[in-house]
């Protein structure tokens, strides 16, 4: 369960960006939020979050900045970029289309 599957990876990216759309957070805080919103669904270890964050940073969708954390030492805070905001809108729309289509299919009554 350490390496997320492609589907989970896609959801993970979407969730990370959604969480960061609210406010900049460091990695640990993101992992806490992830657990809160989806602990039962997204079975990924805390560590898998970081490769995902770095990939999103590489895409230019999120940007990182070192700031002093609540522990009093520096931590890397991520925030959504303008590019990321557009990507989030796109992916959200895609997700909604896909999930509503699937919902329609799976809720078909068997005749």
């Amino acid at each position: 369960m350490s390496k997320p599957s492609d589907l989970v990876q896609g959801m993970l990216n979407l969730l990370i960006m959604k969480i960061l759309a609210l406010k900049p957070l460091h990695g640990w805080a993101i992992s806490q939020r992830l657990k809160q919103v989806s602990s039962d669904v997204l079975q990924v270890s805390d560590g898998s979050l970081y490769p995902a964050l770095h990939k999103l940073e590489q895409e230019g969708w999120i940007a990182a900045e070192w700031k002093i954390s609540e522990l009093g030492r520096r931590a890397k805070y991520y925030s959504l970029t303008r590019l990321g905001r557009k990507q989030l809108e796109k992916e959200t729309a895609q997700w909604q289309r896909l999930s509503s289509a699937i919902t329609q299919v799976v809720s078909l009554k068997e005749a």
Partner: protein
Amino acid sequence: MLWVRWFYTVPLWLRSVLRRNRAEYDLDDEIRFHVEREIAENVARGLTVEEARNAALCTFGGIEQHKEECRDALRVRFIEECRQNVRFAWRRLRSSPGLTVSAGIALALGIGANTAVFTAVDTLLFRPLPVEAGGRLVFFNNGTATSFSYPAFRDFRDRNDVLAGLTAYRVVPMNISTPAAGNFRTWGYEATGNYFDLLGVKPFLGRLFHSEDDTQPGAHPVLVLSYLCWKRRFEADPNIVSRTVKVNGLDYTILGVAPARFKGTETFFNPDVWVPMSMQAQVEPGDNWLESRAATNVWMLGRLKDGAARPKPP
């Protein structure tokens, strides 16, 4: 879109390449912060420090593995980006073949022309003569004139204190006839006796002429062949030394052959033979100018004394 992303990603690449240690340190610190924060959280929930640590490491998963995945994110992205750029460039080039071809031709012409010009300039101007300490040689000119009279040469030679030696030479056409090679017209140098010694040229065969071979006008019917002339006209005859050839009808003794890489002291006038300057009147029948100050017929090449500074160009 592509360009906008570079705004974010190029600094990351540069940092990972130029400041690798820093990037590595940051990655380490980022993950350490996560674990520390998790431990603090677990302790706050009532675990002992030891338990909190174990639990934190457990939920994190393999630290080294995740770090490597983070580094991969950068590398994979970089390679991907390069491949996309190459493919993009290729597609653009293919979509406008006319432009591609003309750009290619323009580049080829540009590079070719530069190479040609450089090769020519290098040969003409930059490469020193293939002689001993060619950098210490100085060519004489007087304003725009590059030639001097023979009496003027003698004055310069005898009344200066900066030169270890001064030689004069002149390029002249000569008719050469031998039983072996037949008759041919070619270019030769009339050169003062110190010519080869001043340049430090050593013979390939036999000997070259010296100052004592150039004292009395008309008294030194000797010559030196160039390597190419020896090879082409005399079929590289190893017994050529001391043979006789006619130059403008007069018998000359072949003293020796110059080495292959020494082709005279002018870029285009590569001589086939060298004869002593004292034979001027015989080589150029009917035109004896050695004692005339009005006939500026010789070029002069000097060798600076050790310690004499090369004059600065004005």
